[in-house]
């Protein structure tokens, strides 16, 4: 490309007070190198470069703070050769909602699919750490991949949720105006809705808003309501996608990190992992916050992920009266927003979620929480619903969004490596977009794999996945019949959420089985309630120990090294009813 482009970016950086940044080119992308004193400057430099990148499609930002070791992925300690010699048609790297949706989509074809996930379970990153909203796309800019896949994905959820038997409702969302002038923007919303197309968008007057959502503060000047906005359990979706993929022949290999990639010419020939070398015909990079690292390992680095942390709080179901929908203040007063700015979200399970916030961070897997983030989100959102209170908080969590500096998704084939596809830079509304992205990636995969003759359909593909029964949601008759067929479904173990022994055992025996206390919690909600597992976690641990045939103290809370105990007490471990 041209020197004038590079010079222009250099000038823009200097104008922004970011001198000393070397501007160059890497794999057809703009490259920033050097050190800056603060992480905020590193991110700002990337954003300034993206804004002035001209014909360069992407920005690679190698800037870092001086004197610090580079941020490295946390890797599993496990070493074995379980995958040695595996030659799948497709290796999907990353077991988040994107990777799992892609694996399932690929199973529609006659393909051998292997999904690699470095954590001890699927959905361990952003996929289990978001608000679960299926966004309508009303706030997305036309022409972006976020807009395209967000709107297409939203429309796919009725069918998908039915096929996977996951609870999903379109509970609508309100963008609430705080200033009268904001109502002038209503025609722009209607225009966006028509162009989207986004169904069910309408203006709601102040009076109607306060009638429909009586907890909204009286200052509200009206709202734009979008009926197609929905809600689901994001890890529930991810687990269901993975289970359905496995049911249809895909393999999921957990605790599997890609440590090196071999390339010959314009093809990837091998993935080195801690569990052996895999030689796939095609690779899909759905590695979330590490997608750029995978690209670099393949000698194809052309974008950079900058981690953006979001913290959300979960309120007791008692606070569910606040709204059955999603409430958010219109963001027009805020200068620059890379996320929807959070809101008050009624989750699919009846809790209220407050958040998420958005903070640029250097570490990519540091999901630690900090009180100022929680205070900030309550301060912000209690303006919308004055009764919102930190006293109702039962838990909180952080997640890391995998943003690129172009703030858009990257979906499709690598420009340089013929058998490498990317589903990268997936941030909000990634959950919404997942099924649409997966569909396109599968199409790209089939095209890329057709070099050795056409790829046929999988005649046995069954899109239907049967969910674990939820007795607490059943009619009395159905519940009785279930208990009669399996008494374990009559015995409640988790008192707060009313989860039975049968559900917990089922979670431990699924196609992608839970292997930890948290894994059970994500699949069936045992421990998700107000006591946060204080009562049921020993009982859940006991069931895990039984199923895995291990001593109780070796049961893991989550991943490697998270065993609940250090051995038996002096009297020895008990075995029996407690």
């Amino acid at each position, binding site marked *: 490309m041209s020197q004038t482009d590079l010079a222009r970016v250099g000038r823009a950086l200097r104008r922004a007070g970011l001198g000393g940044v070397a501007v160059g080119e890497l794999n057809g992308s703009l490259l920033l190198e050097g050190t800056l004193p603060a992480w905020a400057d590193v991110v700002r430099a990337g954003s300034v470069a993206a804004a002035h990148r001209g014909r360069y499609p992407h920005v690679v930002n190698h800037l870092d703070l001086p004197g610090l070791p580079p941020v490295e992925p946390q890797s599993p300690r496990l070493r074995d050769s379980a995958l040695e010699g595996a030659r799948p048609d497709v290796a999907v790297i990353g077991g988040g909602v994107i990777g799992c949706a892609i694996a399932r989509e690929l199973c529609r074809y006659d393909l051998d699919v292997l999904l690699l996930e470095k954590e001890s379970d699927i959905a361990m990153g952003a996929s289990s750490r978001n608000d679960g909203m299926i966004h309508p796309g009303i706030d997305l800019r036309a022409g972006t991949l976020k807009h395209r896949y967000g709107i297409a994905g939203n429309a796919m959820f009725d069918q998908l949720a039915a096929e996977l038997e996951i609870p999903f409702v379109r509970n609508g969302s309100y963008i609430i105006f705080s200033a009268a002038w904001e109502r002038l923007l209503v025609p722009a919303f209607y225009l966006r809705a028509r162009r989207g197309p986004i169904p069910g968008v309408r203006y709601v007057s102040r009076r109607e808003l306060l009638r429909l959502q009586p907890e909204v503060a009286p200052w509200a000047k009206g709202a734009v309501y979008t009926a197609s906005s929905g809600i689901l359990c994001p890890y529930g979706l991810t687990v269901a996608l993975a289970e359905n993929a496995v049911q249809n022949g895909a393999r999921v290999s957990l605790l599997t990190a890609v440590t090196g990639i071999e390339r010959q010419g314009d093809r990837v020939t091998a993935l080195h992992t801690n569990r052996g070398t895999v030689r796939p015909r095609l690779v899909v990079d759905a590695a979330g916050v590490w997608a750029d690292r995978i690209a670099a390992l393949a000698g194809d680095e052309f974008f950079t992920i900058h981690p953006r942390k979001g913290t959300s709080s979960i309120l007791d179901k008692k606070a569910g009266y606040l709204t059955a929908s999603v409430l958010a203040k219109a963001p027009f007063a805020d200068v620059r927003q890379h996320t929807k700015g959070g809101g008050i979200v009624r989750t699919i399970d009846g809790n209220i979620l407050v958040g998420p916030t958005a903070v640029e961070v250097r570490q990519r897997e540091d999901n*630690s929480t900090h009180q100022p983030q929680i205070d900030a989100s309550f301060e912000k959102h209690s303006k919308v619903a004055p009764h919102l209170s930190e006293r109702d908080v039962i838990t909180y969590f952080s997640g890391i969004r995998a943003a690129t500096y172009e703030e858009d998704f990257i979906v499709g084939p690598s420009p340089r490596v013929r058998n490498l596809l990317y589903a990268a830079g997936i941030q909000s509304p990634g959950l919404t977009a997942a099924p649409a992205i997966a569909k396109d990636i599968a199409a790209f995969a089939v095209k890329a794999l057709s070099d050795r003759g056409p790829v046929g359909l999988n005649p046995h593909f069954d899109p239907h996945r049967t969910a674990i029964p939820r007795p607490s949601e059943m009619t009395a008759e159905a519940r009785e019949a279930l208990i009669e067929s399996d008494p374990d479904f009559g015995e409640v173990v988790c008192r707060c959420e009313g989860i039975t022994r049968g559900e917990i055992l089922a979670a431990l025996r699924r196609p992608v089985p839970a292997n930890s206390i948290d894994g059970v919690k994500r699949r069936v909600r045992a421990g998700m309630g107000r006591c946060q597992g*204080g009562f049921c976690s*020993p009982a859940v641990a006991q069931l895990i120990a039984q199923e895995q045939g291990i001593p109780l*103290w070796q049961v*893991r809370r989550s991943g490697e090294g*998270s065993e609940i105990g250090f051995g038996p*007490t002096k009297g*020895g*471990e008990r075995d029996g009813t407690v």
Partner: protein
Amino acid sequence: MERFDVLVLGGGPAGLAAALAAEEQGACVCLLEREARLGGILKQCIHDGFGLLRFGERLTGPEYADNYIRLLGGRNIAVRLRSFVTSLEKSGGGFAVTYTSRGGLHRLEAGALVLATGCRERTARQIFVHGDKPAGVYTAGTAQHLVNLQGVLPTRRCVILGSGDIGLIMARRLTLEGAEVEGVYEAKPEPSGLSRNIRQCLTDFGIPLHLSHTVTRVLGEGRVEAVETARVDERMKPVPGSERLVPCDALILSVGLIPENELAESLGIPLDPHTKGPAVDARFETDCPGVFCCGNAVQVHDLVDYVSEGAATAGRCAALRALGKEAAPAPALPVEYGREFVSVLPQRLRPGNEPAACYFRVAETRGPTRLVVSQGGAVLLQKSYRRLRPPEMERVSLRPGGSGPVVFRLEDAAEKAQNGPAAAPL
């Protein structure tokens, strides 16, 4: 459909005492318990000191519970274990209850209800402990369950946050199991647990108690690797610069108990913000006629002996009500008290000949103090105390007159005082 006079929900010390007392009045009683065994939290309280008031001897928790469980035999009490209530509603003059068990979904009707659902522990999230989320953060009760019921050693070196009684008991228990308790950190300037527990569980074992200190952060990937502690100021805010990193493999929390009243709330029974349980009269009847509440569900107790006493009253009165043996209760007299109290139970009294047991907790540690309970101009009771501490629930007995609120008041007193009874904590 099965019909009982009295349905008791919960098979811990409160539920056991209530069921037995109800049956003694001739009621046909059903007791539902969620777990596979009766005894509630006492099952895991293997330390001694229970029952000094009730049985005149120091018993372990399981022994105390067994004294009640043994009495169940031969009584007209249907005990249903592994039984969990899924819905509760008013029906006719009584209540319709649905519960689930391994045998199916069952419905029954009862003339009166006794809620003896106990309490739960406040969690790390509820006190906003931040940082990573590794394994090794346990509430004291969960740690106690793992050690005493499951035989699992959950830590080799831990920090305990909060000086509530279970935390103190666990400091000693873990030390006996060979674990090192680095220290107990308490954000308040004085301990939350009973004085005897400070002495017997910390001092005797050389475990340091850090008052006005808290845990600000948890660090660790798989397992807890360290916690950050800090001194707190008068407003309980961490003092910058006082942070200290303490290497450990577990953080054990003893930061408060919350009465479990989701069933009461499902009946629309309002909760008292001071006790966090339903408001009751001296018979332990809630604002919903026919619904009684006792034990840690009505207010967190420190002595199981008082739990049993109150629960027996609740059970007896529930039976009398269900059997129609009870004259219409006299109009309630409100109990009033100032900010020097955390709470006074019951929230209402009724005039009558029988003395009513009242329990109170002070808001702050006090030296010589006189409790004065009056109604109208008349003093109903005066009692002097050498020392009063918030963790210790005090009991008095009253016989209020016909009308007007009953007012509890504390006065500073210099004279020599008698002290409340000494007995073991839960």
